[in-house]
């Protein structure tokens, strides 16, 4: 009896939700602001000093960057690399999205699933595939071209700024496709019909109505992708280093973990602050573009099917384009598969078929370091993706349902890491945990991944929860369910496909990421991405190819079925 009356005499305002909210606020602000604080602190320390060493403060690092002659080139390289690859990626993605969403081209469901499943291929793997295809020494395509055209030297090379831009552009097509096909799907066809009715030709309608309507949406997608490309590390690292094409992220990596000499954390920190500012500026532009896009919003909320136009005599050209694109995407995987089956790399030929075997796989799968890396990878990706989704569900509940200043702050804090480049966050984590016992363990990578993928989780859950009528949740409360039970039994199951989708995205990106595993590398926390990177540099191309194939096949086995399932579920709802 007394227990009952005590639980009933709860002071208004202090509910379990309130406790959870404050714990989340403390946790998220520590995880997001803590590392950034240390980063900024370090950037003001004299060269060679550690963040928590009492060595006074100085502007030396900033002066160094601003007066050094190479600095301007690095900034220029970064912007040039990011914007050119985005222009290429968006152009290809636009054409394919148009073909699959707005024309009667066959096989569009297959293309859609392929595009959505591409996240199973890490850019690192894609880059290594291209090195095998077009390296000047014995790249398969180079050898083929030399034989066919009787050339004396290799015509192609992956180690040039142009090659880096083209390969990066190709690898971001699937992401751009996912975003642009959404834009095309949600466009009201009656706006285009209005064009046809007054007698405009199809090309005129596209030029004068469709494209202008999409422009704000395309602008925000472009800025978002530029923001992402400014932050990328893996492709610039494996291709750009040899090409003598440094960008901000690779420069920071080199300063923080040099191959010879001592790390210069102060300079890396200051450069990180510059990259952070660049990303923040892009984020500001992104929000402006979104506001503009909202004004142009053509979504009426009605379920309409965009009209599909007849390809007519353009059909062969459409198939040729899409076919070429998928061939270009699949070639690097094929050459990796080929290489992984040989004792050493050989140009594809019928003669080499006799040597095909699974020996490389047997070799890597019996090595303790690789097995350890696989174990670590599984641990890392399942823990970080599950933690991100658990946190996102709670944070988004407060953001969408509870309102108030602290909930808005929580929402904002969880979105902030979007503007924090992974390389900056990784260096910041390195500085923060350098003297702590978890340094060198898999846990630092887990924490890093939770922070940088949290924005994706909360954005997804915010929009998912917004679609759920609040009475469904109220009904659970009136039935006597606690807040947690309501969340677990009613709200989260209702948006389950979205949760699963976002969980998968985080998991795939956690597998793909090289930045954190490499910056925070130790003998204990090797994962498949860093194992692949180290193996390639050894160099052991066949072993690296085998690891790459294990990575892609393993991830596809999870990604493809879940993508098919959730695409169907979400389409049905």
């Amino acid at each position, binding site marked *: 009896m007394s227990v009952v009356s005590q*639980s*009933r*005499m*709860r*002071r*208004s*305002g202090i*509910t379990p939700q309130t406790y959870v909210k404050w714990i989340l606020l403390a946790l998220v602000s520590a995880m997001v602001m803590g590392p950034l604080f240390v980063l900024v602190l370090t950037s003001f320390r004299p060269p060679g000093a550690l963040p928590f060493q009492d060595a006074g403060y100085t502007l030396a690092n900033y002066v160094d960057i601003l007066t050094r002659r190479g600095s301007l080139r690095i900034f220029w390289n970064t912007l040039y690399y990011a914007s050119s690859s985005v222009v290429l990626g968006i152009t290809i993605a636009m054409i394919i999205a148009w073909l699959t969403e707005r024309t009667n081209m066959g096989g569009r469901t297959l293309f859609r699933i392929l595009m959505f499943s591409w996240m199973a291929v890490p850019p690192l793997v894609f880059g290594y595939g291209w090195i095998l295809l077009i390296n000047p020494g014995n790249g398969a395509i180079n050898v083929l071209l030399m034989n066919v055209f009787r050339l004396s030297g290799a015509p192609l090379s992956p180690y040039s700024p142009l090659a880096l831009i083209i390969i990066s552009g190709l690898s971001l097509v699937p992401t751009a496709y996912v975003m642009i096909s959404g834009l095309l799907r949600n466009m009201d066809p009656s706006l285009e019909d209005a064009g046809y009715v007054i007698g405009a030709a199809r090309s005129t309608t596209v030029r004068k109505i469709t494209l202008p309507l999409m422009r704000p949406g395309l602008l925000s997608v472009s800025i978002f992708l530029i923001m992402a490309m400014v932050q990328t590390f893996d492709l610039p690292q494996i291709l750009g280093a040899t090409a003598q094409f440094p960008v901000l992220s690779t420069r920071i990596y080199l300063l923080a973990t040099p191959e010879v000499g001592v790390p210069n954390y102060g300079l890396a920190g200051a450069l990180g602050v510059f990259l952070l500012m660049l990303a923040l500026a892009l984020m500001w532009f992104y929000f402006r573009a979104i506001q503009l896009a909202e004004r142009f919003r053509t979504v009426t909320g009605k379920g309409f099917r965009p009209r599909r136009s007849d390809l007519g005599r353009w059909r062969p050209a459409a198939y040729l384009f899409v076919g070429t694109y998928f061939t270009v995407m699949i070639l690097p995987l094929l050459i990796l598969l080929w290489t992984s089956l040989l004792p050493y790399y050989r140009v594809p030929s019928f003669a080499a078929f006799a040597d095909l075997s699974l020996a490389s796989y047997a070799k890597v799968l019996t090595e303790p370091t690789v097995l350890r890396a696989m174990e670590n990878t599984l641990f890392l990706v399942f823990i970080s993706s599950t933690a991100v989704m658990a946190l996102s569900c709670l944070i988004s509940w407060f953001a969408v349902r509870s309102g108030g200043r602290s909930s808005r702050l929580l929402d904002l804090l969880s979105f902030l890491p979007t503007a924090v480049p992974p390389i900056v966050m990784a260096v910041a984590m390195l500085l923060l945990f350098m003297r702590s016992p978890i340094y060198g363990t898999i846990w630092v990578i887990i924490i890093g991944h939770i922070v940088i993928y949290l924005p994706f989780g909360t954005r997804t859950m915010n929009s998912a929860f917004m679609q759920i*009528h609040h*009475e*469904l949740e*109220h*009904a*659970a*409360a*009136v*039935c*006597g*369910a*606690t*807040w947690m*039970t309501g969340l677990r*039994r*009613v709200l989260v*199951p*209702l948006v*389950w496909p979205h949760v699963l989708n976002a969980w998968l995205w985080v998991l795939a990106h956690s597998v793909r990421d090289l930045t954190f595993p490499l910056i925070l590398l130790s003998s204990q926390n090797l994962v498949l991405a860093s194992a692949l990177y180290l193996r390639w540099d050894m160099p052991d191309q066949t072993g690296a190819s085998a690891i790459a194939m294990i990575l892609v096949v393993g991830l596809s086995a999870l990604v493809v079925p879940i993508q098919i399932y959730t695409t169907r579920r979400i389409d049905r709802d």
Partner: protein
Amino acid sequence: MMVDKANLYKATARSSGDNDERALLVVRDLRKYFGDPDRGSPVIAIDSVNFEVKRGDFLTLLGPSGCGKSTTLQCIAGLQHPSSGQIDMDGEIVFSDQQGITVPANKRKLGMVFQSYAIWPHMTVFDNVAFPLVHGSARVPSAEVKRRVMEALELVELDHLALRYSPHLSGGQQQRVALARALVHQPKLLLLDEPLSNLDVQLRDTMRVEIRQLVKQLGITTVFVTHDQAEAMSMSDEIVLMQSGRIMQKGTPRQIFLCPKSRFAADFMGRSNLIPAALNHDGTIADTPFGQLRCNPDHKLAPNSRALLVIRPQAIVVPDPEVDAVSPNTLLGEIRTLSFLGETVEIDLGINGHCLKVMADPYLSLSAGQVIRVVLPPERCLVVPDPDASDRTQAAVGLIGNGATASRNGAAVRETR
């Protein structure tokens, strides 16, 4: 019918001590503001709401949208927190700002049916109904769960659909599931938030009767929210009429309909003739555009004040022209328009250039252009304060704005609705 099984259910469902005459629900001085009171003026959703519901009674909160009826219900359910006031349930305080008590919604042991029914689409009908027993505060052993869920489903005649998922149910079936889910854990209080508004007209009429009979047989105290006065009158023991966050009138359906205490009450509860009037010194005689009329005095109105004389079209008597009896309040008028509706005849009567709405017996032979005698029985001529003539009730003017302006401009009689 679904009520046939209610007696059986009741025998197991009801606990002892039903004959207690104490009120089961007491709402004291409830207020709810939205927005920060420190910054600018907050929006007042409900203002000093007081009422009680006796054990086993069916009470309806009635009013137009935005009158605060749903907010009041949500405060009772614990889904919203009032700004101040007190709510007692079964002798226990569940909310009091002064004592700092807020019992959360999940501890109030209520049953509630929502406007959207809120049937969870990812569960079967059985799992929906079992939820309060499995995940709620009144958990029971699993064998017991099955028995009680099936009993509740039998009660609403849906036991054959137990394993179906809710998206495959019709609107009426979903509503029955919602009702079963609200009753399965035998709550002391049932809250119904406009449960009939999403049903088609015919189904609404049947459900109206069935819900009332069901809760009456189970003896469950019920608070019902609606904007439909016909629903309120046919279902309730007591009606609380609300407007702009305040209670305008409380009473039985009969009291509210026959004795409206305000222009709003007269207006909202069906048609009324609202006639501007000047009262004499003792309030028994009103000076109106139709001449001097005797009326049923209201002591709350000041002598010689301006008021509105309210008479329902049904209250007006058309006497037999052959009988030459002299009654007070007899008027002569010309039939301007006449519509024969079968159950009644609706007449617009022109008197002194003004119009009086009359509902007459369909068996009388009347035609347009005819001059007839009508009697306005004095006890049926009510007087209510005229919002236009008093500054105190300025707030109400906005709501009836157009009509108010019209009557001020000389179109003296306003027939409503």
